[in-house]
């Protein structure tokens, strides 16, 4: 069964009414119960839960220690290309911006790989913009062919693919998929995705399950926080992750909590998410899904990221750049065009030192090509 009927089961207005009616008692029950259900998860996302944030954090911390230990896995993104045929209101790579796209040659990919691998990282996330024409699956496959020699795990964050295409990339050496629905609310999705193939809501929503069926080892999902009422968006992200865990028990499912960052455009978020609320989201995820991975990118600032670690984080990016060739290549002319601004600019060595200082073991390799 697809996730779509699970999504459709919930009516927007009912969710709002429920969120408003949640009592502190219900939140307490949800936090303390061994196996919180869907409604309990929603209760932990309600305004009433904010007063219980310390208790939620303590519980999330203990669950994380038991399930994952004092260990954080590190990775870094590598932007292969930034051509995009979609017009997404919130994105720096949007097709409205008048600019020439950039795409790495295989030699340039190798140069970036050499640099990243010199930092010790073995897990890589490769990204392209939303253009099949400029960065087709065959191109991604060629890049993976080059990168395999340098990294023990390669994940992709590209436009939504067909099951057959996921299978093709898996046999080429890809083992992980990151794909954000961006926004689960159908109406808002349609509004912010102004034009392009990404407008197809269901094709994107079902991308993680197509990848799961194709045998993808790790699947990371998320909603871009700021496009719609975050409580509902996080709720659907959690339901989606729970669905994927159930449907693909052999896969490792993880979630991200990306807050909308300032980008090259002029988009204004529909809602803001405070730091307390990010903590609430993270701990609610952990309590609802004790085995889910939680990824924290460099969208968040250094100090905040450090403070969030004990609350349930299992994976962090380090030494990030969101520009094509951003590690080793000179900007073509003028400054780089970035997808969004990085808030934590520390390199891999600094992040590793910080983790050790905090009593966490940075894990640079947690898979291999078998």
């Amino acid at each position: 069964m697809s996730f779509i009927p699970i999504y459709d089961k919930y009516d927007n207005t009912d969710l709002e009414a429920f969120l408003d009616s949640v009592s502190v008692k219900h939140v307490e029950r949800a936090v303390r119960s061994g196996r919180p259900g869907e409604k309990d998860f929603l209760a932990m996302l309600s305004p009433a839960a904010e007063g219980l944030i310390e208790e939620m954090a303590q519980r999330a911390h203990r669950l994380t220690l038991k399930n994952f230990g004092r260990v954080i896995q590190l990775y870094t993104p590598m932007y292969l290309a930034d051509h995009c045929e979609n017009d997404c209101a919130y994105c720096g790579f949007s097709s409205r911006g008048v600019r020439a796209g950039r795409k790495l040659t295989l030699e340039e990919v190798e140069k970036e790989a050499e640099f990243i691998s010199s930092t010790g990282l073995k897990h890589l996330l490769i990204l392209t913009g939303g253009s099949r024409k400029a960065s087709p699956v065959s191109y991604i496959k060629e890049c993976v062919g080059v990168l395999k020699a340098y990294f023990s795990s390669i994940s992709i964050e590209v436009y939504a693919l067909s099951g057959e295409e996921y299978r093709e990339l898996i046999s080429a050496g890809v083992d992980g998929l990151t794909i954000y629905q961006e926004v689960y609310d159908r109406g808002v999705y349609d509004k912010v995705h102004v034009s392009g193939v990404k407008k197809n809501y269901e094709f994107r929503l079902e991308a993680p399950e197509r990848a799961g069926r194709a045998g993808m080892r790790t699947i990371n999902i998320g909603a871009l926080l700021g496009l719609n009422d975050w409580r509902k968006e996080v709720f659907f992200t959690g339901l989606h992750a729970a669905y994927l865990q159930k449907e693909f028990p052999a896969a490792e499912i993880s979630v991200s909590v990306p807050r909308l960052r300032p980008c090259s455009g002029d988009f204004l978020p529909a809602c803001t998410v405070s730091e307390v609320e990010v903590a609430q989201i993270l701990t609610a995820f952990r309590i609802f899904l004790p085995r889910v991975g939680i990824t924290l990118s460099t969208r968040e600032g250094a100090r905040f990221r450090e403070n969030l670690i004990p609350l349930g984080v299992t994976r962090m990016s380090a030494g990030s750049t969101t520009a094509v060739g951003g590690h080793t290549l000179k900007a073509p002319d003028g400054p780089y065009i970035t997808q969004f601004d990085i808030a934590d600019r520390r390199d891999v060595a600094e992040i590793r030192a910080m983790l050790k200082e905090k009593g966490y073991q940075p894990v640079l390799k947690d898979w291999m090509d078998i």
Partner: protein
Amino acid sequence: MSDLLNIGGKELASRLFVGTGKFARKSLVREVLERSGAEVVTVALRRVDADSEDENILDHIPERCILMPNTSGARNAEEAVRIARLARAAGCGSWIKVEVIADNKYLLPDNTETLKTVEILAGEGFTVLPYMNPDLTAARRMQDAGAAAIMPLGAPIGTNRGLRTRELVEILVEEIALPVIVDAGIGSPSEAAECMELGCAAVLVNTALAASEDPVSMAEAFSLAVKAGRLAYLAGKGPKTKEAEASSPLTGFLRG
């Protein structure tokens, strides 16, 4: 009295096995091994980074210890076999803990695929220790397939819930000639002692140490508990009864 555990031709004085996955720093592994005297240590090959210029987990394992790489991450027999072969090729010896898990939510092992793995690896000369659900029929088959010991779970990995599978593990101890090593779920030294009192050959712990405030002291506590439990088993415990036993027997007159 010498009471050594023999596995795959190796004689072990310590019946505490240690996992390395969740520690705050890699160097803690050495301290834990030193203080506890543990002689068998399992390492996930997926985490071993031979190219790393930084510290390598293997550098923290004393010479006297037996390295038992595990196949963590394997979802089926084919992947587990490949990981085991990679481990041996990487110079990690020929002991292998088979871990085939196709369930990331509960981390429960797949006995069917595990059995297939044991059959193949035992045939290739590995000393194979399968992590398994405590199922008697599966355990018999692992034995027939050439396993060197069996490692049933006490509770799901990382739960620290203790010997929840006690009834089933007792049956394995009774019926299986191989050493029975409880792996996973043991949260406290008293639970490790419980396993040993039942006649288990050894106990493997990781989370209980790594998640404690002082993993090194906790390792020593486990080591003592395992010894105490073993000694109690060898001494032969009196049977447990629910009601108090009358101190003046009622049938004494018959023998009078």
